[in-house]
């Protein structure tokens, strides 16, 4: 089987300081990869490099495109890369405000990606928007409300709907549950797990919350100071951590 995403030797430096270095992995279709680590460990830098938001200094990010098979997204032309970003890729930001248009209604937010790939039938766009709001548990009568009128959890779900409406194959998530209270987190995780299974999505989830990766991720990478210190199956890494830092991380989780 061809990996959906092959990451080879990614490095990003901010001047002399290391953002991330020597990162490489393969992601297969339907697989969810978790990246954990403390603040400043380079997880978000890595995610930005993979998603094309930040040019890395070294390395290759090879994506299995629908049309031409595996291609290095870093050497693609910009229109191709941006097309990929709004069709086969999706990016869920930690703060919903970064990923939503706050001045545009929920329906318009969901419909934007459809219109960006050429949908020009209002009725169809609206039907799909309502359908997707339903799938992320937002009532259909909120379709014309602006995201400002939504709670934090609803904004995050709206952001997910907006990203998944074009049926992407790879989703990047940066702390998708950050800033939400635990009961809302639980519902969001439940929803995400359902969607990932149902749509056969591959995902890369960056988080510092081990519970999130335990629930969602098949595989786990632990980062510290810009390098990967341990990787493996999620349960294996969390139940039998080998590296000193991973042991610290696992034992730091509060039990209630």
């Amino acid at each position, binding site marked *: 089987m061809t990996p959906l995403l092959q990451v080879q030797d990614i490095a990003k430096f901010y001047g002399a300081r290391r953002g991330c270095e020597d990162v490489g992995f393969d992601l297969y279709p339907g697989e969810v990869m978790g990246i954990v680590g403390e603040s400043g460990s380079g997880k978000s830098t890595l995610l930005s490099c993979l998603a094309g938001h930040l040019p890395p200094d070294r390395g290759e990010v090879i994506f299995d495109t629908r049309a031409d098979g595996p291609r290095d997204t870093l050497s693609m032309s910009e229109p191709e890369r941006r097309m990929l970003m709004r069709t086969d890729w999706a990016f869920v930001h930690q703060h919903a405000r970064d990923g939503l248009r706050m001045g*545009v209604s929920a329906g318009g937010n969901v419909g*934007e990606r459809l219109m960006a790939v050429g949908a*020009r039938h209002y009725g169809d766009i609206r039907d799909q928007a309502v359908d997707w709001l339903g799938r992320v548990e937002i009532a259909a009568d909120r379709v014309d409300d602006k995201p400002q009128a939504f709670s934090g959890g609803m904004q995050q779900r709206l952001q997910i709907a907006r990203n998944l409406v074009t049926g992407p194959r790879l989703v990047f998530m940066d702390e998708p549950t950050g800033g939400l209270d635990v009961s809302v987190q639980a519902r969001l995780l439940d929803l995400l797990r359902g969607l990932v299974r149902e749509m056969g999505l591959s995902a890369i989830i960056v988080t510092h919350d081990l519970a999130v990766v335990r629930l969602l991720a098949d595989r786990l990478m632990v980062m510290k100071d810009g390098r990967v210190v341990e990787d493996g199956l999620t349960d294996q890494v969390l139940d039998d951590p080998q590296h000193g830092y991973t042991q610290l991380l696992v034992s730091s989780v509060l039990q209630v």
Partner: protein
Amino acid sequence: MSDYNFAYLDEQTKRMIRRAILKGLAIPGYQVPFASREMPMPYGWGTGGVQVSAACLTPTDTFKVIDQGADDTTNAVSIRKFFEKTAGVATTEETARASLIQTRHRIPEEALSEDQILVYQVPIPEPLRFLEPSEVETRKMHSLEEYGLMHVKLYEDISQHGAIATAYAYPVKVEGRYVMDPSPIPKFDNPKLGMAAIQLFGAGREQRIYALPPFTRVVSLDFEDHPFEPSKADHDCDLCGAGDSYLDEVIVDDAGGRMFVCSDTDYCRSRRAAGHVGAQGAPYEEGAA
């Protein structure tokens, strides 16, 4: 002196503006940056249009200025006087006699011909501006032809009002390539944008010039199930009886009285001179106001 610095601007400035105009004509709908000069009037009063007009005027031109369709409002009168003084060109209020027409927010009702130039005053040239505040990003969107966002605006209109409520500055796609703001003309005028005359758009504060060559294919954006509709008040002109012109609604007393009159004053006058009389109009007399 007027031979050396004809029409207010110095020759180097006019040369720079003409280059921008030529580039704009070569790439219809593309916003060409230019080094806009300080003009002796405030931004928002047509500084862009005046610079384009100054660069296009020749001593044999006949000049006309329109402000919201009218020849006799402040903006029109002051710009017309400005060029009478600085260029010494002949001026007129008759659309057919003018070779260069500067306009604010209207296209004349009378069809223009191939030997005329129409210059628009543009406040905000970027059609995507209110959706995407970053100039870097909007330029990239233009260069990569990413115009999905423009339809988000129309989507919002329909979801809020049940129909595309944008009534002026209605976005158009030029020759299947650039999305362009046709300046705040009513969407009633959009179908005329493919006219025989050269159309030049000048935005002074924003420092952009763009252009439509004659007979350019200009399509107003819409949805398949909500097609574009040019709209006007559902009346005839009360002075000249015209049923096909764009109308202004005028409040005439404190008791709710109102009348609808042609926004194009020259069109209305010429129709009345030809003997047409509307519901509230008096027969036309030469020289009467």
